[in-house]
Structure formats: structure tokens, C-alpha cells
């Protein structure tokens, strides 16, 4: 506990030090909240993702702050634990009165915060990395009140891309083996529904628990129904065991693999010669000037280039909040909620990341001109459920190496969703 406390203290000290940097000599401050996994099973990722968010705060302040006030981010650790996350979010909302929270990382934690804190209290929540399709469902039921956004595309898009690719490769009968958590369940469910609508058949859908001594019986039941391929949803550790046992049990050596298994180590451990055919999908990216600006700013602040997924998503989440407050000339949750779509999308002049980008946006607002922010993750267009769409990368294993073979554009995915959508 003491360690966490120390980390939080150090983090807040760093943030306050940044906020009161000489560049920003404003008298007033605007505080937003953030709940991220700085420790726990996602801790290693969370530490860096938080840096992405802090860089955005720094950038906004260097550009003169929000509405002339210093932007401050109150960062809390959720220990990758929903209960801790809810407590932290409650404090931020009830005591610090923040209008927006950036976080959480894990879909499980984000969901807990959304349903018990932010949605009931009408506080904006933007997650940089929670990809479970269940958030879209919740938004459709109207339970998010429109206060929920995320800068990472939902796994629903990935399932569409995977179902499409599987059918395009002539696969008709596919078995699904998935890790039992929101990631696996979401992806497996969405894939099955689209694959069936496209005329395919899911022969078996078998969940597995992480850290089990063996997965032979899971594989045995997935093999029933004579599938032509397996869609294996998981992470490299246990995923490798499942894949090897699948091959050993005589399963067809045709693999459909999601972003979680786009790993050279996974392919090496399973053995490329046993993977006759691999169809992979993962979140793709659009190269924008913002990404270069983000990378250079990151290097300047932390001394090294960003290396990890979702750091850009965290950066964009903070930038979007700041731009919405600037555009709406206010700091309340409703101002942010109502203006997020005014500063993103496709209309008007593009505005890129970095100090210059924010300064340009502030100028355009003064001149009454429309603009849209092009994020470090790519152009951001939030739909009515708070989701962004992004392209999907298609990958495969060629000569033993993981290799991208193509990109499925947002347009293509949208067309498929319209055709088969629900």
C-alpha cells in the first residue's frame, strides 16, 4: 500500500510541478481526473500509458492552458482492480469535482467506473484502451447518458474484419477458443454473430481459463464438429499452449488470430511450420503528422521514443477534453460532452497534435472557424455511442515472420456493418 501511495504522491508531485511550470503563469487551474492501472497486472503498460496523458497536459499548458487556465490532471492508481478503481473515481468526482476522467485501462475497471460513478454523476469518461464491445451495448441501452467515450476502437470492428477475411479465404466452419474475460468474450461473441450472417458456421465456441495446467479437454471439445480452422483469442502465454495442443490433437493447421496474438514470440513458440495458414487482424493506424509530433514531443520530455500501444490514445483523450473545454468556453462535464464532437470528426480545417496544434485550435475558435483535431492515433470520429472507428490491419505469417499484408479501411468495415449489422 505504501508503495502505491508513494507512487501516487510522486505522480501528483510531478503533475503539479509541470502545471506550475513558468510557461503557464495563469492564476486559475482546471483539474481533470485520471484513473489508470499503475500497478497490478496491467501496471507495466499503465505506467507508460499515463506518460502519454501527462505529455498532453504538458502540451496544453505550454500552449497557454485551457481558457487561459492551467490544466491539471489528478492521476490515481486503480491497481488493475475494479473496486479500487471505483473508489478512486468516486473521490475524484465527489471531492475533487472533476468534470472528466481519463481511464480506466482494463475494460473490467472502466465498466465498473462507468456504471457506478461517471454515468450516474454525469461526468465525462474517456478510456484510452478499453476495447470490449460491451460498452457499445451499454451506450445503445442509453445507460451511459452520452458521457462515455473511448479513443481505442471497439473489438467489434476487429470481429467484422476477421469474419470477412475468414469468409474471403473460403472458410465455412470455424471453431472459436477464447480466453474467459471481457476481451475474449466480446471478440468471440461479435465474431460468431457476423460469421454466421456471412454464411459461415461456428462449430464450437469454447472458453478457457488462464493459468490452467492443461488445455487438452478444451481443445478436444473445440475439435468436435470438424472445423476447418480455429479462431484462437487469447494472450501469448496460455495461447501458445492451446495452439500447440490444437496441433498435437490433429486440428487443422489454419489459424485465425486477433491482435492479442500478433506476436513473433508466439509464432516462434508454436512453430511456424505447424501454421500452414494464418489470418490475423489487429488495430491498424493511419499515419498523420500528429503521430510524428507526438513521438518527438515524447522524446523531448522523457528522453526516449514511445514504444507501446495505447500511449497515443491516452494523449488524444486528454487533448480532446482540453479542446472541447476551449471550444465550449467552459469546464463543466456537459460542455465537454457537447463539444467533443465539435472538435473532432471531419469538418473544417485539420488541427494536429503538439503545442502549435493547440495554439492553432485556440486561434480558430476565436475567429469562429470550424476545425477538427487529427489525433496521434489518427482522425477521430466519435459515433453516437462514443466509439471511434479505425482501420484494421490484416497480418499473416510468411516464412516464419509476422507480416502485415493489408489494411481494411474504416469505409469497408462500415459497409459490412451496414450490410450485416445489428
Amino acid at each position, binding site marked *: 500500500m505504501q508503495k502505491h501511495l508513494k507512487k501516487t504522491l510522486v505522480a501528483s508531485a510531478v503533475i503539479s510541478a509541470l502545471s506550475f511550470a513558468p510557461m503557464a503563469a495563469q492564476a486559475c487551474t482546471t483539474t481533470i481526473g485520471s484513473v489508470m492501472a499503475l500497478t497490478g497486472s496491467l501496471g507495466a503498460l499503465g505506467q507508460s500509458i499515463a506518460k502519454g496523458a501527462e505529455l498532453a497536459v504538458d502540451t496544453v499548458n505550454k500552449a497557454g492552458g485551457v481558457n487561459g487556465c492551467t490544466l491539471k490532471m489528478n492521476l490515481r492508481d486503480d491497481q488493475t482492480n475494479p473496486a479500487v478503481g471505483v473508489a478512486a473515481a468516486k473521490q475524484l468526482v465527489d471531492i475533487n469535482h472533476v468534470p472528466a476522467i481519463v481511464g480506466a485501462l482494463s475494460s473490467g475497471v472502466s465498466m465498473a467506473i462507468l456504471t457506478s460513478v461517471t454515468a450516474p454523476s454525469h461526468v465525462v469518461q474517456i478510456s484510452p484502451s478499453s476495447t470490449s464491445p460491451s460498452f457499445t451495448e451499454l451506450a445503445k441501452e442509453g445507460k451511459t447518458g452520452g458521457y462515455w467515450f473511448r479513443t481505442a476502437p471497439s473489438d467489434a470492428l476487429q470481429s467484422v474484419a476477421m469474419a470477412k477475411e475468414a469468409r474471403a479465404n473460403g472458410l465455412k466452419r470455424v471453431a472459436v477458443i477464447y480466453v474467459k474475460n471481457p476481451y475474449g468474450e466480446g471478440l468471440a461473441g461479435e465474431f460468431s454473430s457476423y460469421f454466421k450472417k456471412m454464411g459461415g458456421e461456428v462449430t464450437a465456441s469454447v472458453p*478457457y481459463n488462464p493459468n490452467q*495446467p*492443461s488445455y*487438452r*479437454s478444451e481443445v*478436444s*471439445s473445440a475439435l468436435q464438429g470438424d472445423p476447418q480452422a480455429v479462431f484462437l483469442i487469447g494472450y501469448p502465454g496460455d495461447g501458445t*499452449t492451446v495452439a500447440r495442443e490444437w496441433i498435437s490433437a*490433429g486440428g487443422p493447421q489454419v489459424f485465425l488470430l486477433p491482435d492479442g496474438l500478433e506476436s513473433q514470440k508466439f509464432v516462434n*513458440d508454436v512453430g511456424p511450420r505447424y501454421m500452414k495458414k494464418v489470418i490475423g487482424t489487429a488495430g491498424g493506424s493511419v499515419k498523420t503528422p500528429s503521430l510524428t509530433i507526438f513521438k518527438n514531443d515524447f522524446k523531448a520530455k522523457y528522453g526516449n521514443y514511445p514504444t507501446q500501444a495505447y500511449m497515443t490514445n491516452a494523449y488524444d483523450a486528454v487533448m480532446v477534453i482540453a479542446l472541447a473545454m476551449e471550444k465550449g468556453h467552459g469546464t463543466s462535464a456537459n460542455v465537454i460532452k457537447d463539444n467533443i464532437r465539435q472538435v473532432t470528426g471531419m469538418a473544417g480545417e485539420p488541427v494536429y497534435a503538439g503545442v502549435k496544434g493547440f495554439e492553432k485550435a485556440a486561434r480558430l475558435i476565436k475567429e469562429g472557424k470550424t476545425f477538427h483535431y487529427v489525433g496521434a492515433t489518427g482522425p477521430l470520429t466519435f459515433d453516437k455511442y462514443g466509439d471511434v472507428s479505425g482501420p484494421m490491419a490484416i497480418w499473416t505469417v510468411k516464412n516464419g515472420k509476422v507480416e502485415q499484408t493489408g489494411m481494411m479501411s474504416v469505409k469497408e468495415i462500415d459497409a459490412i456493418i451496414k450490410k450485416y449489422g445489428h
Partner: protein
Amino acid sequence: MFGQYLADGIILGSTLALGAIGLTLTYNILNFANFAHGSLLTWGAYFAWIIVVAFGGVQGATFGPLSFGWPLVVALLFTAVMTSILAIIVDWLVFRILRKTNIQVSLVIASFGASLLLRNLVVVIFGPEPQYYSENIQIAREIFPGVRVTPDQIFVVCLSIILVILLHLFMTRTKLGKAMRATADNTSLAQVTGININNIVRWTWIVGASLAAVAGVFFGLTVQILPEMGFNLLLFLFAAAILGGVGSIYGAILGGMVIGIAADLSVLFISPAYKPAVAFTLMILVLLIRPSGILGEKTR
């Protein structure tokens, strides 16, 4: 499908049985639940891996349809010796001192600490990534209609049976084995009759650790080698030992088999997501009916 699940269960059961024997032995003779036992499995698997990798360059022929050749046989012997030495060192550094205090709880907690230490030492030395004895994957063959197993899996089951028979002969026919059983029954009485307790303790570790090492290699051979493997197996090992009756070697074998088979057969009836719960539900049921376990002695 029944036959396939049964075969899957027996393969896992063999590994669990060997691991559970060591656990039950330490409980019986040293009188504490050794949480570090899982780490002995892990270390056993990694010691063997060192040998397999060291001989990797010269490894040419494999034994018939098996995925390995003589390096793994050397590795099995090497790992039995090394894991025994490791167990004796841990005993000398930690448990020997705590045994004097005669407070059981401190031994149990210390073993938990030792387990964490040993596991993290593996991560420091070998890294957190999974390893394999062979890059090759064996394709299962049909031995009975609808039952497919790999040659390695048959080897694992056969060697387990041989080891259990050898252990039985050791415990019943040799002087040392008899002395170990005497110590387990009544330590003070055994001491009075001239049995050297320190020697018995040492041999308990050697037998328990060697079997754990072999179980670790079996797991590595049929699944994968991972720093967490022993820790993940530990709960199942405890379930097996308790189900069979703590202290009873034959109970541990039976318990290992029951846990392995029950977990895999359960897939026929319920979603595999609940597989881990089956083993423990079964354990609770058995304990409610027979608190001493299936083959446990009533007096304990």
C-alpha cells in the same frame, strides 16, 4: 468423446500424482504443508531444460516416435539430483531452523515465502517467457477408436507407473523406506529405536524433490515450461494430496488421478470455463463424507 477426455485426464493425472507424492511425504514426515513444493517442480523442469539445450547441438536421433533422444534421459537424472540438492539447501537455510521452534504455522508461511523466492529466481535467471524441450509438436495418433494420444504422453504415463512401483518397493522392502514410514508414524518412537532423524529428513527431501523434478519435466514435455507452472499446479497438487488422504502415498496417486480425470471429464457436462472448480468441488465433497480423505488414516 468420453475416451478422449479420459485419456486427457490420465495424462494430467500422472503428472499430478508424482507431484502430490512429494507433497504428502513432506507433510507426513516433516509435518508441514510445503507450499514451496510447486517451485521444486518448476526448478526440476528448468534444470532438465539446461541439459536439453546444452546437448541441443549434438541431439540427432530421437527414440523412435518420441520427440526426444538420450539428452532428456540424462536431463531426467541430472534434474533429480539438482532438485534434491536445491531442496536440501532450502531445508538447511530455512526449514531446519524453523523446525526447532516447533510452530507449524511459521513453517507453512516460510514455505510460502520460499516458494515466491524460488519462482522469482527462475524469472531472473531464465526469463518470464515460456520454453520448450523440443520445437517439434507431436501429432497425436489414434490408439483406440476416438482416442488420440501422442507417443510422449504414453511415455509419461508409463514412466509414472514405473516410478510409482519403484517407490512402493523402496518404501516396503528397503531399510531406509521402512525407517521413513516409522518416522512418519511416530517420530519420537523412531528416534528411540535408533533411527537417525536427520538422515530421514534428508531422504524425504531427496525422494520428494526427485519425483517433483520428474513431474516438472513431464509437464514441460506435454505442456510447456514456465516460471509459474509449479505455482499454478500447486493448488491441484494440494487438492490431490488432501483428496487421497494427507500422508498416504497411495492416496496421493489416487487423488492425482481423480483430480485429473474429473476435471477433464467435466467438460462433457459443463462449460470448460468452470473446469477448475470441479476439482475443488470434488475435494470438498470427499472431505465432507470422509474428513481424512479417501485413503487417509482415521487417527490423523
